[in-house]
């Protein structure tokens, strides 16, 4: 095959693959499970999202609102941002309740707003008041439910 034709073929194949990848990416980005939008309880109250949208909801666990179902399979509580409150139910089959999940502590849940205004969470992350730790650990702890805010490493100490 002539060099020129071969180059044309290579470019076509490359473009084709790239197009395929782009199509897959766009498809994935638009489908419901891939992206989650951040929201606060006030956002949910004022602008309820469509039911299929995946939401990441952050706030504090309202004191006195935590209830465990009798069979231990679900956890119900309310998230508040000081202005609004959202009832949440979390099925522990989705993963462990983080050790730091506590009333009055920061928490982030991910899931969808279900019927009756109850947020059905499939991911539960409790905010961790720990100092700087290697980002690998921070990310990894996120997976077990310990979510750390953007506390930076120590600023330079004056010598």
């Amino acid at each position, binding site marked *: *095959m002539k*060099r020129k034709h*071969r180059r044309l*073929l*290579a470019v076509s*194949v*490359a473009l084709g*693959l*790239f197009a*395929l*990848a782009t199509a*897959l*990416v766009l*498809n*994935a*980005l638009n*489908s419901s*499970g*891939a*992206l*989650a*939008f*951040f929201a606060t309880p006030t956002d949910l109250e004022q602008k309820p999202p469509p039911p299929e949208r*995946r939401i*990441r909801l952050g706030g504090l666990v309202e004191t006195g609102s935590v209830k*465990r179902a009798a*069979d*231990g*399979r679900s956890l119900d509580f309310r998230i508040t941002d000081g202005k609004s409150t959202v009832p949440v139910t979390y099925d*522990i*089959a989705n*993963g*462990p*309740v983080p*050790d*730091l999940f506590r009333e009055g502590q920061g928490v982030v849940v*991910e899931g969808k707003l279900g019927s009756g205004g109850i947020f059905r969470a499939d991911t539960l992350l409790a905010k961790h008041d*720990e*100092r*700087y*730790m*290697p*980002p*690998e*650990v*921070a*990310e*990894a*702890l*996120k*997976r*077990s439910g310990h979510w750390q805010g*953007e506390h*930076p*490493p*120590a600023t*330079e*100490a004056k*010598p």
Partner: protein
Amino acid sequence: MIAELGHFSLALALMLALVQSVAPLVGAARGNLGLMALGGATAIAQFALVALAFAVLAHAYVISDFSLATVAENSHSTKPLLYKITGVWGNHEGSMVLWVLILSLFGAAVAWFGTSLPPDLRARVLAVQGMIGAAFLAFILFTSNPFLRLSPAPLDGQGMNPVLQDIGLAIHPPFLYLGYVGFSVAFAFAVAALIEGRVDAAWARWVRPWTLAAWCALTIGIALGSWWAYYTLGWGGWWYWDPVENASFMPWLVGTALLHSAIVVEKRDALKTWTILLAILTFALSLIGTFLVRSGVLVSVHAFAVDPARGAFILVLLAVAIGGPLILYAIRAPSFQGGGLFAPISREGALILNNLVLTVCTFTVFVGTLWPLFLDAMGGGKISVGYPFFDWTFVPLSVLLLVAVPLGPLLGWKRGDLLAALQRLMVAAGAALVVAVAVAAIASPAHALATAGLALAAWIGFGDLSEWAERVQLLRVPLRTSLARARHLPRGAYGMTLAHLGVAITVAGIAASAWDQERIEIMHPGESLAISGYAARLDKVEPIQGPNYTADRATFTVTREGALVATMRPERRLFTVQRVPTTFTAIHSDLLSDFYVVLGESDGKGGWTVRIYEKPLVPWIWLGCGVMALGGMVSLSDRRWRVGAAVRSRRATAAAAGD
């Protein structure tokens, strides 16, 4: 006093790195042997100085010198010595010093072992290494100094995070950095080639061992990280597609493409510009990856704001280190002469396809990782990208590539016979079919994809072995002849066979995760739980006292059909200093599956939430990675690609290869 020595060492190293960046380049341009040789001397001296600085830092950790801010933050007097040492790189500043240490080590290695390289190539390579070293040393000295003092020094440190005191987590950064930084050598060779205006087979022969070594280290580093997450985090997952994992995976993907591309340059004098581009991209991704996880710099827009000095420095560094070579590439690459012609269906063609798919896969991971950042920067709100994105983009593309893996090696150079190759893979196809049917018969239709995955693994594995059988003419000539041929196969061939086998093993492990079983129950002592033919009986939960923690320890007796399998003791520890409850999972592995037990919370009434998993073939995921790395190391030990092999004649090596 000693800490200041460390600081001074780094500053001196920076000076040397600057000299190393300029002098050899000038020498190469002018043919001045003296200036060129200076590159080697500065590289070795730079390594000695950085090693000294690292030793000083490590010493400070070992003797718990809390007058150093990093030691105060990350260490504690009661930490076991092992973790005091590994704590050196368990934080931003220390890990940067480790990075530069490994970089200067590689630079010194090229200087030491590269005496048979053409002096101008060697000089240019060392100059590029010098530039990278200078940039990182400047970064450390100006924004991340590990030798900053706290005055007066605190009485004790804060660094008692129990999660960090784990051997898996502690040793995986050095492997990752050996990988990331190792690719800097290929990068340096690529840039040197662009400056020189020449890429030939000898160049590829030089690049190959360094790339292989880096690739092996990165493979091990990624596998270690994944395994650590698995046994630490308590719910059986081993890959989350989070930015930190992706940051290490992307250079691995492109590095694999680089490895394969370099073969074509070496054997066929073709794909030169591709290989150069891949070498630049791999290291670029290493750089981006390193910074992506520094305080979440590139992932979180806000982390930039937290330390804009660092953020700006990194941006400039990336712009110069990556933008520069890419511009050079745009100017110089078109003039590189293409090598021999080849048909689309050929080993070259297959390797090009390999390159393309791997690059496109990397692109999808890249998009998924950085999309939240882009969207946020454009005011599109804050989003997060979850694992389904990657399942729907990366997986289909990688399957495309995996199907082709057994085919490529069976195609000839220049012009391959696809039909003949497929015929040779009949056994593999048969095996895949058998596996598919057998598994489908006992599995539910919901697991169709996983069944296909197992069949794919069989296809790759048996296809790989078929290729080896082909080489030794198994069953076509007397066994003795086959064995003789097997003994004389170059190690590189075994390296490939092993590495591709490792891929098959890992793919099988991943596919089998569809059949994980999980039970979450509240159990009381004496109760038993059945899962996958096992019975796990909770015997007792007792409070215990550790050296720096208290814990609740559960004892489980696990039996299968009445016979004892294991006694497992998961714990929930509460470390006294950190007051962080941490779960310690108990895992029983027989290499065919893992039995995984986690102790959750107490319900206050004598019951405990218990999570038990039975995960078939999950150990194969990391076993496969180990086999891949082993293949890489076997390849590395092949004499033909030993540093200095460029001197031997091509004819002799071609004969030994028997290709």
